């Protein structure tokens, strides 16, 4: 459990940096570090599903935040810091590979052990439904309302954003939306 504490300390440090730093772009990068640390924590807690989702959503939100915070060209110079850049890149690649190896070795085989909450649901699945894809069956039959709520929240957000952008497109001339 020492790894999870290291990841938590890393996340707290990155969050403090994100709050306290003056530059907005540095703050956004620190927020991305918090998200990547959360993905590593999910992977260490044997939830690769949530780790993939967290990583992908973190990348998308990071792109949107960078797009929102920077308004003009930034000075993009890496000259003079190549030694620091190379060493830090190699360090993070090594740390990532070690954590990934340790986390992926600890994940049990799918279906080998059932958590306690899933056991009665798995026993009540009808026999004709057991056609290989049991998790999808549970997702569509038992947890369907949960997934419906998840998708409905996203759908509502999309409809609202499209309505707002349609008004902007009307006043600013037709540009696709």
């Amino acid at each position, binding site marked *: 459990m020492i790894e999870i504490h290291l990841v938590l300390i890393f996340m707290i440090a990155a969050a403090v940096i994100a709050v306290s730093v003056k530059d907005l772009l540095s703050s956004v990068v620190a927020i991305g570090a918090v998200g990547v640390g959360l993905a590593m924590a999910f992977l260490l807690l044997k939830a690769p599903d949530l780790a993939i989702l967290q990583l*992908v959503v973190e990348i998308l939100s990071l792109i949107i935040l960078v797009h929102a915070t920077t308004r003009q060209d930034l000075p993009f110079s890496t000259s003079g810091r190549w030694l620091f850049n190379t060493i830090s890149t190699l360090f993070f690649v090594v740390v990532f590979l070690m954590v990934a190896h340790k986390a992926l070795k600890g994940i049990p085989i799918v279906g080998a052990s059932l958590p306690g909450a899933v056991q009665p649901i798995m026993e009540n699945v009808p026999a004709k439904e057991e056609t290989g894809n049991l998790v*999808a069956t549970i997702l569509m039959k038992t947890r369907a309302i949960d997934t419906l709520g998840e998708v409905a929240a996203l759908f509502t957000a999309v409809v609202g954003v499209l309505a707002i952008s349609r008004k902007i497109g009307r006043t600013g001339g037709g540009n696709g939306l």
Partner: protein
Amino acid sequence: MVYKSPNKGMTVIVKTVTRLTLAFILIYGIYIGMTGGVSPGGGFTGGVILALAFVHIMLAFGKEAALRKLRANTLRMVMGPAAFIFLLGVATGRVPEEIGAICEMVIVGTGLFAIFIALVLASKSDRNSE
């Protein structure tokens, strides 16, 4: 920002790499979405990866190229029926799981890409008004 303006896109290196890797990103997103039942992944994750592929096009080639590939009306026409089929599957339970996963993938992908388009257009109109 690293690229010069939102309309022109990035340099030729980024454009070439995007052209080479785009198909792999799309295939990986569909794979993650379709095999979510027996391995890590799922419809939501696959949809987010599909949306990231189109965000990738928009960042590399500029806004016009991405909107030429996927117009807002197309987004609406695809997302509406997918949401309807998913709702039907939840209500009746007669829609197969694979079609439900595809519908969730389509809803999430088109929805997140539409949000990104709307944010880009809104920020552009802000810049014009200043």
